[in-house]
């Protein structure tokens, strides 16, 4: 019980710390997530992103800036919290708690990179093809696309974790 309570507190502290860091950070402070995201978006779209100090990563040919608001830290926090909750039944010892927190953090970060890459690549495509959805404004399309990709990403990450959780690892050391 004490381990479970401590796990909840540590998870809440990590989520709060990430949110706090994101709120106070400038684009340069978020290179730990913006740099791999810009590289992945470059691989997917073929665009070249160059670092603009204080701004983020800019593609001249696409006229697209990957800035602070595109970092995907909010997705990472949501994914981290969701995965800790989903894997919470595995917290039986301090070691297991550390594993759950570590796996959730790593999966949240990796998931954020992949989902954010999809979101930005889709945004670039939609910006280049405004006639695809002529009934909606570009702002509305961008907003709905962001919601669908982020929510869909959380659902996929949850499903993947549930499947791996059931198939790969026993629930407790005794079982």
């Amino acid at each position, binding site marked *: 019980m004490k381990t479970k309570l401590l796990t909840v507190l540590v998870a809440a502290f990590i989520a709060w710390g990430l949110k706090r860091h994101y709120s106070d950070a400038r684009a340069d402070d978020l290179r730990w997530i913006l740099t791999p995201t810009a590289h992945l978006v470059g691989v997917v779209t073929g665009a070249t992103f160059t670092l603009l100090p204080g701004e983020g990563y800019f593609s001249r040919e696409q006229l697209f800036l990957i800035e602070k608001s595109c970092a995907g830290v909010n997705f990472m926090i949501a994914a981290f919290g969701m995965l800790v*909750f989903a894997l919470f039944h595995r917290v039986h010892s301090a070691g297991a708690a550390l594993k759950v927190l570590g796996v959730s953090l790593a999966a949240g970060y990796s998931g954020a990179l992949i989902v954010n890459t999809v979101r930005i690549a889709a945004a670039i495509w939609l910006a280049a093809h405004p006639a695809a959805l002529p009934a909606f404004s570009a702002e509305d399309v961008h907003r709905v696309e962001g919601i669908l990709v982020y*929510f*869909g990403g959380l659902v996929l990450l*949850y499903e993947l974790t549930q499947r791996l959780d059931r198939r790969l690892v026993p629930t407790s050391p005794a079982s």
Partner: protein
Amino acid sequence: MIGALGSTIAHAFRRTALPLGAYYGITLIVPLANGAPQSGSIFLEHALVVLIVPPVAIGCACIVHTIARAALERS
């Protein structure tokens, strides 16, 4: 078919409850706690879209799934 659709939708909402909760938590509850409603109608409009789009997407996915399954069973 309507009964099958209702059952599929109920199952889908149960299955996506945690991702939906996590998504609403980071997009609605955290900004609400940070005083976002003070920014006025911009947040309310955004919140309304954030609130509506995921359940609509789940519903659409269920309709497509039910129709596809019915078509497969017939063929």
